[in-house]
């Protein structure tokens, strides 16, 4: 049916008398170009977000299926943990003013918010990561960690995966002392 009507239209040259909005001289193909949409996404993307259990930070551009051209096994390397994995990664946690230290398994957590919540529960305090959050006034604490090189770093600067491989111990510093580490 469609084929017959196509032939019919060509013979009568209906296109020439067609009413359209658009400058004279422009035709269909240029319209199609502008409507070319690079922001295809697919239900797969949403599903994979849930499966990976990583924080689904929406990128500034909507994700396109097939782009960037990365194999899924590579994504698994970086974001998924093996279920039957090695023993946990226990690090000592000290808190300024507390009489004794604690130990936590940082491999149990999936991201920074999880970790900080656990620390807050453990030490019954409120911990701010960035200086934007309630400011670094005297009553708040800042989490810091000692990395492989022995340097004391502010928690939150590097990607989570990088953090858990380089963190050797944690210290929750009193807000006033942590000022030098980046609180504005």
């Amino acid at each position: 049916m469609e084929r017959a009507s196509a032939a019919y239209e060509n013979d009568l040259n209906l296109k020439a008398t067609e009413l359209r909005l658009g400058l004279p001289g422009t035709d269909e193909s240029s319209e199609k170009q502008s409507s070319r949409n690079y922001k295809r996404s697919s239900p797969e993307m949403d599903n994979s977000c849930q499966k990976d259990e990583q924080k689904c930070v929406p990128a500034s551009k909507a994700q396109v299926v097939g782009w960037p051209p990365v194999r899924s096994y590579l994504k698994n390397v970086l974001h998924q943990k093996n279920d039957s994995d090695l023993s946990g990664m226990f690090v000592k946690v000290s808190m300024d003013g507390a009489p004794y230290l604690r130990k936590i398994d940082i491999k149990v957590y999936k991201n920074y918010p999880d970790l900080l919540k656990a620390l807050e529960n453990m030490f019954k305090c409120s911990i701010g990561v960035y200086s934007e959050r309630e400011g670094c006034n005297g009553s708040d604490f800042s989490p810091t960690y000692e990395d492989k090189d022995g340097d004391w770093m502010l928690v939150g600067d590097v990607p989570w995966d990088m953090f858990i491989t380089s963190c050797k111990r944690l210290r929750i510093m009193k807000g006033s002392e942590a000022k030098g580490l980046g609180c504005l």
Partner: protein
Amino acid sequence: MAYSFPEEVLEYVFAFLSSHKDRNAVSLVCKSWYEIERWCRRRIFIGNCYAVSPQIVIRRFPEVRAVKIKGKPHFADFNLVPEGWGAYVYPWISAMVRSYPWLEEIKLKRMVVTDESLELLSKSFKNFKVLVLSSCEGFTTDGLASIAANCRNLRELDLRECEVEDLSGHWLSHFPDNFTSLVSLNMSCLGSEVSFSALERLVSRCPNLRTLRLNRAVPVEKLPNLLRRAPQLVEFGTGAYSAENQTDIFSNLVEAFSGCKHLKSLSGFWDVDPAYLPAMYYACTGITSLNLSNATVQSPDLVELIIQCPNLKCLWVLDYIEDAGLKALPSYCKDLQELRVFPSDPYGAEPNVSLTEQGLVTVSAGCPKLQSVLYFCRQMSNAALITIARNRPNLIRFRLCIIDPQAPDYLTLEPLDTGFGAIVEHCKELLRLSMSGLLTDRVFEYIGTHAKKLEMLSIAFAGDSDLGLHNVLSGCESLRKLEIMDCPFGDKALLANAAKLETMRSLWMSSCSVRRCPSSNVEVMDERGHPDSRPETCPVEKLYIYRTVAGPRVDKPNFVWTMDEDAVLRLS
């Protein structure tokens, strides 16, 4: 042909021809050469499993011992080919079981392999020696158990980046106690833990073992025992490379690695604790291939390891290496031939590492043998590309992925046409090119004019009109595979170059503007419904065109339509 050589002599001469191209050329000389050649061909390569049928292959080549078959198009790696599309190996295996009882080797890429297929092959080919499955799927560890249990003469079991349903690690224990012929075992893509004692015993009793690639589940504590039992190893892949602080592990590793005096290739390195990397240094002088694409460690640790390998030819690494790390390569790894830099955070909106075009420029300047590049980065400039092209006219493979689609030259904000133009102009032996960034029809003019040896081209988000595609199809004389996503190419260029398509293995176009297709060997994939059921102006979702002598597929899923003769009539 009164003066021709006896058949036996010709057969003897043909046996020296290993390249498929040469064999194919020989078979075209005359009828008697065709006949002689087909009876003595032992190795077959089928680049597209749908280009020919098992029956046709068997009829022509009755005495084959080794088969290599490729299935899905390359873009299947990036989830662009829907589930259930095809590339099933079972029909091939069942046909070969009847006709090639002495088959020794099967190598498959991007095919669907079932446990049934694996069991059938393991029980039918008495002299079966080599199974290599690259990017395959559809089987479980039960299939592997059949292979282990039944292939008494197995030499190679190589699973590269396959999606295997991992029911348990028990499959490895199915190798019989008197099985000693193993030369190569690659289980790196499997998840479950195998029995370590079974693995140790297997390694101990196979004196010819030269390749052992473990999976992530093998902890680093187990490595010294394995390495001590196989000091003859040439290629080794670790499992997870970290542990609780135990000082004796480190010294055991050092001792074990120093005993391996023949190592040329290292891989694995999941969950790396950089403190354990120095344990390998003694084994590094002979290393030619280093795959660190799982190693999520920072640049200084990566560099420390890499500079221990003066004979390095092939390096795969994550972008944690950064520009600073790549700077070390010209000084320490002058023989580098292949470099692949993968993105650690491909979906992040902002760069997480300091890796730019500068890293690649430095390597191109200082490594004179560099011929193969795969590089993911977030910015590029025409100036950098021109420099790379001038530095390295010997490039054979150049695949650049700038993560932001249509990113322009970050210095001038212009398209990257002149940069890629310089690549094809200077690198006259270029076989494979993948482009990205902002590109207009101009770049395709350059490609059509200069890329005469180019065999494979991958394009995304590029070009302005059909002229772009037309330049490629009409200019690239050696083109075999073309894959295109999200470009404004339509019917015109395809129609004008229909004959060209017959000379290529395949053309893939997805999310382009194609509405009607020029020939009968065309598959349209559209999960929304038959192409004719939608408005004429609506482009098809995915198009896959390939030449074939096998006729239309009999195993099509319901979202694939092959265009028929009517399509050709409609266009004319």
